[in-house]
């Protein structure tokens, strides 16, 4: 799989969000991980968020999985590099209670091994929605539950195997699918 560079503007945005504004008076930030995603063949999912107002916050999320799990049969892999930029609306208060979110997401993926040894590799870009709930455990820690879906444009190749496999298929088009199920921890500061 080709390694893609993370676009510079995302890095700048992350720097802006995590830079000197961290301790700006009244503004809250969050950093969280999705524990449930670890069950997805060790996918690491993290996000950083920043509260904009009482009811709104913006989040940047990254999902990374470089692993290939060797199996007696097929190799299992759900390699991906996904980033998304999400805005959330909190009916009560930021980082507390229910929220609904909308996001724009880009994903590079390489997966195989679930049904057959064929490897599907591709890129997807689209929009998504999410709904979740944050339960406050203490002053800084939240337990987050969420579910989301997304849809957009996808282009992928399908190979016969994971290593030097024959190209079987090449496809592109629109898609819509459930996206994430989150049970995670958020650190608020």
């Amino acid at each position, binding site marked *: 799989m080709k390694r893609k560079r993370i676009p510079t503007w995302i890095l700048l945005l992350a720097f802006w969000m995590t830079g000197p504004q961290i301790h700006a008076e009244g503004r809250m930030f969050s950093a969280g991980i999705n524990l449930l995603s670890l069950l997805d063949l060790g996918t690491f999912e993290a996000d950083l968020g920043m509260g904009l107002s009482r009811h709104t916050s913006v989040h940047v999320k990254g999902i990374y999985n470089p692993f290939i799990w060797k199996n007696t049969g097929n190799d299992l892999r759900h390699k991906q590099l996904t980033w998304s930029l999400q805005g959330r609306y909190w009916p009560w*208060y930021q980082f507390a209670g229910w929220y609904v979110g909308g996001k724009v997401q880009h994903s590079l993926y390489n997966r195989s091994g679930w049904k057959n040894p064929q490897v599907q590799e591709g890129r997807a870009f689209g929009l998504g929605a999410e709904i979740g709930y944050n339960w406050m455990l203490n002053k800084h820690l939240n337990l987050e539950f969420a579910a989301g879906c997304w849809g957009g444009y996808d282009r992928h190749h399908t190979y016969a195997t994971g290593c030097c496999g024959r190209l079987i298929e090449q496809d592109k088009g629109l898609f819509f699918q459930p996206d994430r199920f989150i049970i995670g921890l958020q650190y608020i500061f």
Partner: protein
Amino acid sequence: MKYSTITSFRCSVFLFLWLASSCATQRKLELVRQGSADAHLSLLQEERTLAFNHTEDPKAQDTIRVKDLSGKEVFLMRAVQDEDGEMIASEVLEPAVITATFRNVAERLGVVDLQFCIHVPASLQDPSWQIRFYPKLCVQNDTLILDPVLVTGSDYRQRQLRGYEAYEEFLRSIITDSSQLRYQALIAHFLDRNENNLQDLRWEEILRYYERRGLIFYNNLKIQNLDNYFQYKVKAPYLNCPIYLDTPATDSTTTHAYQYTLRTRPRLRKADLYLTGEIWKDGSLLYAMPQSDPLTFYISSLATLQEDRTRYVQRIVERKALTKTIAYIDFAQGSARIDTCLHENASELARIENNIVELLSNKTFLIDSLVITSTCSPEGRYSLNQRLAHERGKSLQHHFQQFVNDQMAKWEEEQKQTLCLDWTVNDSLQTPTASPILPPARDSLPAFSFINHTIPEDWDRLKVLVQHDSLLQQREELLQIINAPLAPDLKENQLRRQQDFGRLYRVLFPLMRTVRFDFHLHRRGMVKDTLHTTEIDTLYEAGKAALLERDFEKALTLLRPYQDLNTAVACLCLDYNHTAKSILQTLRPSGKRDYLLALTHARLNERQEALQHLVHCFEMDPSLKFRGNLDPEISQLMQAFNLNEQ
């Protein structure tokens, strides 16, 4: 297999026992309905043990009927040997218990203690029942339901308590602490996290968001259904009224003493007591008992010992009478003409005219004369005031003379019209009347004289007015001038020089321009100047009536000045024993007096003196022996010393 056999055996035994108990209860209820098991009332008295031969079985038959070999019926009876050696048949009768149904009770200090017993037979009591007895007191036209007596079976009580326990558990499950209806931990975390950002938030908003809505809804549902749950769980609630006694049911006949203090009323002679009851099971009425036979309490009072005597007071009636009235009639300056439009003249004149008409119509008095005294204020010359006062007096005299003449003429006309009408009616009916019908109280039209009297300048009145006027600053100087032995005009000149003359002129002088009317009257048909009559002392009569009405405080207040037997009775009714004793000791000996004195001594624990007076009393009036049974103080003495037999 074995297990199922044992289980089915146990079930059938349980079913049998349950059926047996419910049948027994049904049978008991039938007995109650038939009247075989009834509660009843009795008077509270000491238990009397009857002489009874316990060696013999009271149920054993003395007489047995048998048939001999020929089929003839033979009576075999118990026989005893008499003094002649003869065998005589005897039969032992079962003792008969006679229960009194009435009692004499004495009223003391306005109250009567009614004591009685409620007997509950064993056959009426059941563990699953509650029997409620309601004593009913009929007093004159009123019915009082006394506090009930409950006899509660153990099963009934257990079910009752279980129901209340379940209900209390339900009550305890209702959350009353509002903090438990919120996510307190979340509120604390939220406040901790956002302590710098809460300026836009209201406390109520935070509380409302973190309410546990489901729990609140469920809690409110419980609160709304409190009554329903109570009715569901507590089938046999406690009575919602004061209860005299709540006692457990037993296997034997029980007797419950009851005491009720009744406040006496006027003319209260007796009170009838009835007993009604109900049998309840599981909160529903099984049976309502019919009303029992009455117990009668005859109420005696010391007030009935009062003397029915009448006192008289002497009254002196004089033939002549005088009534006065003052009118403020204004005249124009220098004028003696009566102007009805001036100030209050119209109302003042009308008032005087009404007085005259009332006196003319009075059935008791006749007018002899009317003295009109008119006065003037001191301003102006004395001679002028003198003439003016006289003319004004004449003017008023003429006015009222004319009024009286007009009034008399009007009455005469009314009289004539009444006579004509009567004759006309009688003519039409063709029934001649014996004498004409005259209007009442006007059959003699009075004639009286008018006397005119004047006080030109009423300096005495001015003096009184000045003395009572607190707003005058030179009061002493003014009084000096008024009292000075000077001519009126000179005094007036000196007054004019005073600072307070303005007030005198504006306020006090008008009060001096008055006309006084003195009506000299005499009683119709009375020739003597004075008449001495006796009439009934209404105060004494009111005191006696208050005694009968049981208003002892009022009776004593009215009778205290008389210091006689009735006063003593009022004192005794209020337990003022020493006062009663001191009064009675001053009275002449009599049956009632000695009886009351004996009662007083008995109350004061002076037995010797009480007995002495009691013996004297019975000697003078033997009928009071029967009265003695009605008063506990006397009846105790009579019983202790056997005075009934002597």
